[in-house]
C-alpha cells in the first residue's frame, strides 16, 4: 500500500511536519522533526527511483481525480533522479544545520527557520513530482517564499536586502512563468503536462506557443540564475546562514533547471526548443559565457561564500550548455552535473560554515594557515575545488567528460575547447584559495590545531567521500543520468 503512495508522500511528509514544528516551537524538537523528515524522504526517494527503474512511470492522481480534471503527480527517471538529489542534500544539510545554525540564529527563531526549511523542501519536492504546470507554479512559490525567509535569518544585516531583492526577482520570475502557462492554457485548455505534450505539436506554428515559451523560459532562467539573469544569487548565497547556503546551493536552482528541461524537451513539441525557435542557441551562449565569465569574476572576490556563489552561477552555465546542446547526451551531461555539482558545492559551503564557526569569518583572509589549523575542513574545500575544476578522481571530471563528449558529438569542437578553458579559469580561483590556505605563512602567529566541530565535519565529509566515490565509479550516476535524459527527451542515446 505504501508503495502506491510514494510520490505523494514525498510532499505530504514535509507538509505534515512543518506545522508540527510551528506548534512545538522548540529549537531542538524542530530540528529533530526536520531530521526525521529528511530520513523519511531520503528513503522514500530511493524507493521511488527503484520503483521507476523497475516498473516504469509512477502516476498518482491527487484526490482520486484523474488527470484532465485533477492534479496528477507523475514521476519518471528524470524527476526521480532530481528528487534523490534534493532529498539527500536536504538530509545531510539538516544534519549539518544543528550546530551551524546554533552559532548563527538566536534560539527563539530557530524553530521558524526549520519550519521554513521543511516547507522549502516540500516546495522543491512538489516542483519535482508534479505533473501539472500550475501546480508547479504553486510549489515554486512555496519553495521561493520559504527561501526568502531562510535567507533573512542570516547574521549580517545585508541578508535582508539580499532576501528582498531575491523576493522581487523571484516574484517577477514566477509571474512570468504564470503568464506563460496562462497562454498555454488559453490555447490548449489543459494544464496537465502529458496533455500539453499531446496537444501542443498541432499548434506549434502559432505565435502564442512561442510567446508562452518565451515567458516560461525567461521566468525559469531567472529562477535557475542563468546568466545574465543571475543578479540575485551572489548576495543571497553570501548572506544566508551557512547551513542554508549549503542547502540552497545544492538544490534551489536545480529544481528550476529540472522544470526547464521538462518544458523544453518533454512538453513543448520536439525541436521546438532547438530548431523552431533556436532558443537553444541563446541558452548555449548564455551558458558558456557564464561558465567562463562568472568564474573570472569569482577570482576577484574576497569573501569565500560570495566567491563560491559566483562559481555556482558558472556551474549553472555548464548545465545550461548541456541543455543548449539539445541532444540526449547533452541533457544527460546536464543531469549528471546537477548531481555532481550538488555534491561538491554543498560540501564546499559546509566546510566554509565550519571555517566560520572556528574563525568567525568567511573572508579569504581568514583562510591564512587554515591548511594546518584545520586540515580536514580545508581538505574538504580543496577537494570540492578540484571537483569544480574537473580534476580526475572527482565527480567534476566525470561531468566534464560527459559534457565535452556531448559537445564533440555534434562536432562543436570550439565549444569543447571553451568548456575546458572554463576549467582553467576555475582553477585560477581555486588556486587563489589554496595558496592562501596552504602557502601563506604568517611566522608571528602560533598555529593551533582548531578543527571545526565533528557535527559539521561528518556531513561535510560524507559529501566529500561521495564526491570521490562517484568520481571513480560513475556507473550509477552516469546510467541514471542517461536514463533520466532518455525519459525527458524521448530519445535513446
Amino acid at each position: 500500500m505504501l508503495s502506491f503512495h510514494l510520490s505523494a508522500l514525498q510532499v505530504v511528509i514535509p507538509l505534515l511536519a512543518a506545522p508540527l514544528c510551528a506548534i512545538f516551537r522548540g529549537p531542538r524538537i524542530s530540528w529533530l522533526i526536520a531530521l526525521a523528515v529528511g530520513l523519511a524522504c531520503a528513503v522514500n526517494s530511493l524507493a521511488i527511483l527503484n520503483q521507476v527503474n523497475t516498473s516504469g512511470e509512477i502516476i498518482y492522481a491527487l484526490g482520486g481525480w484523474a488527470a484532465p480534471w485533477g492534479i496528477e503527480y507523475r514521476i519518471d527517471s528524470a524527476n526521480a533522479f532530481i528528487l534523490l538529489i534534493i532529498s539527500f542534500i536536504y538530509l545531510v544539510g539538516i544534519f549539518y544545520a544543528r550546530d551551524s545554525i546554533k552559532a548563527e540564529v538566536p534560539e527563539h527563531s530557530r524553530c521558524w527557520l526549520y519550519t521554513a526549511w521543511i516547507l522549502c523542501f516540500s516546495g522543491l519536492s512538489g516542483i519535482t513530482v508534479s505533473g501539472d504546470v500550475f501546480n508547479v507554479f504553486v510549489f515554486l512559490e512555496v519553495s521561493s517564499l520559504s527561501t526568502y525567509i531562510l535567507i533573512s535569518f542570516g547574521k549580517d544585516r545585508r541578508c535582508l536586502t539580499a532576501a528582498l531583492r531575491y523576493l522581487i526577482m523571484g516574484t517577477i520570475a514566477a509571474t512570468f512563468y504564470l503568464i506563460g502557462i496562462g497562454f498555454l492554457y488559453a490555447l490548449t485548455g489543459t494544464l496537465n503536462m502529458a496533455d500539453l505534450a499531446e496537444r501542443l505539436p498541432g499548434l506549434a506554428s502559432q505565435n502564442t506557443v512561442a510567446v508562452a515559451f518565451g515567458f516560461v523560459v525567461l521566468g525559469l532562467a531567472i529562477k535557475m540564475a542563468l546568466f545574465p539573469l543571475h543578479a540575485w544569487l551572489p548576495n543571497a548565497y553570501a548572506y544566508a546562514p551557512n547551513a542554508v547556503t549549503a542547502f540552497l546551493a545544492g538544490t534551489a536552482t536545480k529544481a528550476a533547471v529540472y522544470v526547464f528541461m521538462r518544458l523544453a524537451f518533454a512538453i513543448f513539441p520536439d525541436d521546438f526548443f532547438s530548431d523552431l525557435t533556436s532558443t537553444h542557441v541563446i541558452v548555449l551562449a548564455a551558458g558558456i559565457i557564464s561558465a567562463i565569465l562568472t568564474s573570472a569574476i569569482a577570482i576577484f572576490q574576497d569573501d569565500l561564500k560570495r566567491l563560491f556563489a559566483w562559481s555556482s552561477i558558472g556551474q549553472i552555465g555548464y548545465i545550461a550548455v548541456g541543455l543548449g546542446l539539445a541532444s540526449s547526451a547533452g541533457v544527460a551531461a546536464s543531469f549528471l552535473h546537477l548531481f555532481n555539482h550538488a555534491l561538491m558545492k554543498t560540501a564546499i559551503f559546509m566546510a566554509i560554515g565550519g571555517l566560520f564557526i572556528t574563525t568567525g569569518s568567511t573572508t579569504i583572509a581568514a583562510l591564512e594557515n587554515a591548511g594546518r589549523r584545520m586540515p580536514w575542513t580545508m581538505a574538504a574545500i580543496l577537494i570540492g575545488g578540484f571537483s569544480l575544476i574537473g580534476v580526475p578522481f572527482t565527480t567534476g571530471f566525470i561531468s566534464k567528460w560527459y559534457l565535452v563528449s556531448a559537445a564533440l558529438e555534434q562536432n562543436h569542437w570550439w565549444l569543447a575547447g571553451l568548456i575546458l578553458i572554463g576549467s582553467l579559469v576555475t582553477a585560477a580561483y581555486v588556486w587563489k584559495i589554496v595558496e592562501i590556505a596552504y602557502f601563506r605563512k604568517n611566522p608571528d602567529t602560533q598555529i593551533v590545531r582548531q578543527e571545526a566541530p565533528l557535527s559539521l565535519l561528518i556531513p561535510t565529509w560524507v559529501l566529500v567521500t561521495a564526491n570521490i566515490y562517484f568520481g571513480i565509479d560513475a556507473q550509477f550516476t552516469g546510467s541514471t543520468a542517461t536514463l533520466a535524459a532518455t525519459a525527458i527527451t524521448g530519445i535513446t542515446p
Partner: protein
Amino acid sequence: MSATTVQFYCLIAPLMAVVLIATLGRVVPKLYETINASVAIVTFLLVLSVYNSMGEAPVARLVLFEPFAGVAIALQAEPLGMLFALMASFLWIVTSIYSYGYMRGHGETNLARFNIFFAIAISSAMGVALAANGFTLFLFYEALTLSTFPLVTHAGTEKAKRAGRIYLFLLLGTSVGFLLFALIWTWKLTGTLDFQAGGVFDSDIGTTTLNALLILYVFGIGKAALMPFHRWLPTAMVAPTPVSALLHAVAVVKAGVFAILKVCVYIFGIDLLGELEIHRYLAYVAAFTIFATAIIALRKDNLKARLAYSTIGQLSYIVLGALVANAAGVVGGGMHMLMHGFGKITLFFGAGAILVAAHKTEISQMRGIGRRMPITMSAFFIGCVAIIGAPPTGGMWSKWNLLLGTVHSSDWLLVAALIVGSLLSAAYLLPIAVRAFYLPDDGGSTKIKEAPVTILIAMMISAGGCVVLFFAPDFAFDLMQMLVH
C-alpha cells in the same frame, strides 16, 4: 600471486610508505628515508616480478574500476611501460639513499610532508607506466602533477610559489586543454581508449582530424616539455634536489615522453603516424627545441638551470624518436628514456652534492672543486658523458638508435639536429667538469669536504648504472624490440 594482480601492488606499494610515514613517522622521525628506501626496494622487486613473467605470456589486463561504460581504470604491463617502471622504481631506491644525506645535510624542514608526497608521486608514476588505456594514463598523469606540486613549492618562498603556479598552470592547462580534449575526441571517434598494438583508428577517419589529434596529443602532454610549453621545467628547479633529480629528471618528464611514445605506438600506430604529414613538422619542433635549449643551456651559469634546459633538450630527442615514425626511432626513444634517466639523475645528484658540501649553485664558482670532491665530480663526469652519448656509457646506444631512426626517415635536417645537439651538449656539460678538475680553485673553498656518504653511495650507483648499461643494454633493447614488433 599472478602477475596481473602484482601490477596493482606496484601501485599500492609506494602508498605503503605514506601509511608508514604517517603512523611511524610521528614516533621516530628519523625513519622516513629508511621507510622510503625499503618500500622502494619492495616496489622494485614487484616490478621486476611483473617483468619476469612478461616473457612467458602476455600479462592480462587488470580492470580496477569502470567509471562509466566503456571507459575503465585498468592496468596492463607492456614492454615500454615495463622499462619506465623498472627505471623509476630502481632510481627511487637510489634517490631514497641520496635523500637521506641531502635533506639532513641541507637542513630541510617538513620532511614528513616531503616524503609522503614523494611516495604518492612514485605511485602515480607507476600508474602512468602500467596504464592500459588513455583514460587511466590521463588520471595518473594528473595525479602525478598534483602530487609533485607540494614538492615544487616545498621551500614555501615567494619564488617557490610562483614556480608552483607556473608548474601547475602549464601542466594542468595543457593536459586539460589539449590532452583531455584529444582523449575524449578519440573516444568519440573510435569508442575505445585502449592501447592497442598498431593503433586504434579506423582507416576511414580523415587525415585532417588525425593531424589535429596528433598536435593535441603532442602539445597536450606538457610534461614532455616540448617548446613552447617548456617553461615549467626550469622554474620547477626551485624544488629540493632529490625532487629535481628523481621527478624532474626521471619520473615526471619521463612520464611525459613515455605518454607521447605510448600515443604514437598504441593510439596511432607507427604505420599510420608515418602516413600523417604532420609528424614531420612536429619532429621539426622537437629538433628546434633540441637546438634552442642547448643554446640557452650554454648561457646559464646556474648549474641546476643548465641541467634543466639540458633535460628539455634531451626529452625532445625522445619525442623526435617517437615522431620519426619508424622502428629504430621508437627503439632509440625508449632506450634514451632509460639512458638519459640514469645520466641526468647523476648530474642532479652532483648538483645537490655540491650545494650541500660547498654551498655553491653557480658554475662560475666551481673552479677546482673537483679536487676537493673527487668522487662527486667523477660521477658527475660520467653523467656528462652519458648525456652526450659517448662510450663507455649507455647513452651511446640510445643516441645510435635515434640517429638510425632519423637516417631511416631520410630527413637530413633531423639528422643534423641530432648531431649538432649532441655536440652542443658536450659544449655545455664538459666545461663544468673541466673547470672543476683543471682550473685552480679560488682559495675560498678550503673548508670544502666531500659530500655526505649516502650521497656518494647514491651517486656511485647511478653513475655505475650508466656504465653498466653500456655493457648490458640488451634487456632494454629486447623490450623495445618487443614493442615495435
